[in-house]
């Protein structure tokens, strides 16, 4: 999957983070040509093979995973444009992957998080535990595919959603293109959950990820909160190999941490002792 050169509507401003050897090669040219070249290099529409860092704008939405941020063009999820997440079935970690970013968006922006046609009931306690502010959350369940696409396009372009997550079913290229444009208009993180069989479809999305479910039963206990993923398409970079990502959920603790639990219960159960901030720490140690 080759990186595309058609970056439209991108800001021409570009942080000056060129490497020093670039600058030394510039120095050999006469003054006006050097300026022209420098101006050209700053243009984000020109892709240089020297790497991802050349194109970063730093405007991305941090994913919450340091190792993933470094692989993404803008140090995070694209803050506008489509992101496609391809996976085989629900349950591979597709929401847990996005949860830190959604939590952050819900807490920092006064805009909706819109979920369009999720396959099951999004479970409020889990979302709340993940730090998502539920009062920013909006679920839309249209009956028909046409309505789904209509809602998706309107919501993406409305500028009143910080993120739109959709399970849109099958889409053709023209529809994807329209959604991509809508998402750029509305400055909105647009996430499409699609089936892995759409992997060969050409897509105008900013970012395409594929999530793998781990095949085989061996060592099931050791890798349960890891996610295997592959970046199929990103701005200014090649597709990556499959890599592993450690998710920050608590599912990898096979037994609850009882010491923590005790402190919590004690804290909640005896409100008359809450003012004693210090002893609670101590109490935890005693119980350990």
């Amino acid at each position: 999957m080759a990186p595309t050169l058609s970056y439209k509507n991108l800001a021409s401003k570009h942080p000056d983070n060129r490497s020093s050897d670039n600058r030394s090669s510039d120095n050999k040219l006469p003054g006006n040509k050097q300026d022209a070249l420098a101006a050209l290099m700053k243009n984000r529409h020109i892709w240089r093979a020297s790497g991802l860092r050349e194109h970063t704008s730093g405007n991305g939405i941090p994913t919450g995973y340091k190792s993933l941020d470094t692989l993404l063009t803008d140090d995070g999820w694209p803050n506008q444009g489509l992101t496609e997440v391809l996976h085989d079935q629900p349950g591979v970690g597709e929401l847990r992957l996005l949860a830190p970013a959604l939590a952050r968006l819900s807490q920092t922006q006064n805009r909706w998080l819109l979920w369009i046609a999720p396959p099951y009931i999004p479970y409020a306690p889990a979302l709340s535990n993940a730090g998502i502010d539920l009062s920013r959350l909006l679920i839309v369940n249209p009956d028909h595919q046409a309505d789904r696409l209509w809602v998706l396009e309107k919501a993406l372009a409305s500028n009143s959603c910080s993120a739109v997550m959709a399970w849109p079913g099958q889409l053709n290229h023209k529809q994807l293109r329209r959604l991509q444009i809508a998402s750029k208009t509305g400055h909105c993180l647009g996430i499409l959950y699609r089936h892995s069989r759409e992997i060969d479809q050409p897509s105008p999305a900013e970012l395409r990820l594929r999530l793998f479910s781990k095949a085989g039963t061996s060592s099931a206990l050791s890798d349960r909160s890891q996610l295997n993923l592959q970046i199929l398409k990103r701005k200014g970079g090649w597709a990556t190999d499959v890599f592993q990502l450690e998710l920050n959920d608590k599912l990898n603790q096979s037994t609850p941490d009882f010491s923590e639990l005790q402190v919590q219960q004690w804290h909640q159960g005896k409100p008359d002792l809450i003012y004693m901030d210090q002893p609670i720490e101590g109490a935890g140690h005693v119980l350990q």
Partner: protein
Amino acid sequence: MSCSNNGTGKRSPVWLCLHFHQLALNIACRDEQHLNQPLVVTEKQRVYQCNFAATNLGIKPGHSMDTAFTLSERVTTTERNQDRETAALKHLAQWAYQFTSNVAIKGSNCLILEVAGSLTLFGGLSKLRSKIQLGLEEQGYCTDMAASSTPQAAILLAIAGLMDSSLNAKADIGPAPVECLQTSNKVVLGLQQMGIHNLHQLLALPISGLARRFDTYFIDYLQRLTGDKPDPQTFISPVANFYHDVTFLHDVTNLASLTFPINRLLGELTSFLSGRQLWANHMTWHISHRSHSRQSFSVYLAAPANDNKMFLTLTQLKLDQIKSVKEVDNIALSVNRFFPAGQESADLFGDNRSSGAQHSVQRGVQPEAQRGVQPNSDQQNQLLNMLTARLGPGKCFGLSEANDHRPEKAWKKIRLHEKDYWVSPKQEGLPRPSFLLPTPKALNVVDNTPCLGGKLALVKGPERIDFGWWDQPIDKPLTRDYYVARQRDGGLLWVFKHLDAGRWYLHGIFS
């Protein structure tokens, strides 16, 4: 022009009469501007009123239909309907209520408004008059307006077409011809036979002499006309609901061409609402045809508003979805529920949290760039309005936790205008799936192990959740042990064992 005080500090009344001299014609062509096409309203096979194009062809009120058709074959005719005129006049009276609370209906085509109290608010009589004129033109009504110090004088002047007045009844009505007097034909004839042709001449006569010649009703009328006798009026009371319609001359087959009448009705709704300082969040449109049953559709707003453009957008969205209507000859708009205007609606945007403070501590976010994309709540409401208009009221909702330990009941839907969020205390140790199945799904069991696409490996648990004895029959305890289970291909599931029955169920997915 200003309202003058009569020395006692009491405001002298200013009566404004709106005379709808072409009411029947105006009603007939409310669906569009029939300016180029000759249009005739008939009554008993005679021309009752005709529009400008018809007058140009030589058609005059009183002509027989044969004469009209001889003059032109292109004439469109429609029968006069007095019920609709009465209804329209009532509606106009309600509309005029936005200018003053003292509105009365006089005769079949006149409204009188006592506007002395409103002059300061609207910036003088002439401004008020042009505002009324403009509002009526927008609705497709033309009117003659005149003001005077008594109601009857205002009516007389409006009918006589004498628009300028000094707000002194006796001085104003002088030039008016006696034909315009609101009295019986016999009296008018008698006056003319006496050689009295205008009010100047009439008012110069001594009242006692007139009293001998004419009946007391006429004398009473004259005294009320000049202001020598008080003339109390019965004012309308504002109606609680909005209902108005447009009837088409020709059947409309293309729903897109309904835009003009819809816009007109919405304009009337908007002035109805602003006149009463109300907002609405739900309106119903009725589309009918004489040979089909009436169809209705409703438009819902996320929050009450009085916003013409928004109403129009939403109505058109709804209209696009209507497939089954073939012909329309009448469209009506009704609104029955209102909210006081400006009241902070109980919606989801109560807190306008500033984002700047939190941004500054976050990595890689430029507060300026982010602030540029913060929407106002109008924009957010607009999205919600469009979603509810197209999808219906129940398809769009928020989520909240609920105060219950049972997984099925630990969440609830939040309707758009509610703000009933409940946040549970954090329970770090307990895993909860991001997707919950609407009903638990029974799992097959092989070798005491639940299966779904192969055996499931239980990786975390059990967490015992005892179901509410208060909701259950006492002899059917429901106790569940919840586990996080791992599928062979890596999917994480939330399963439980129903302790009593010993069966396994799938309840959620850790997506």
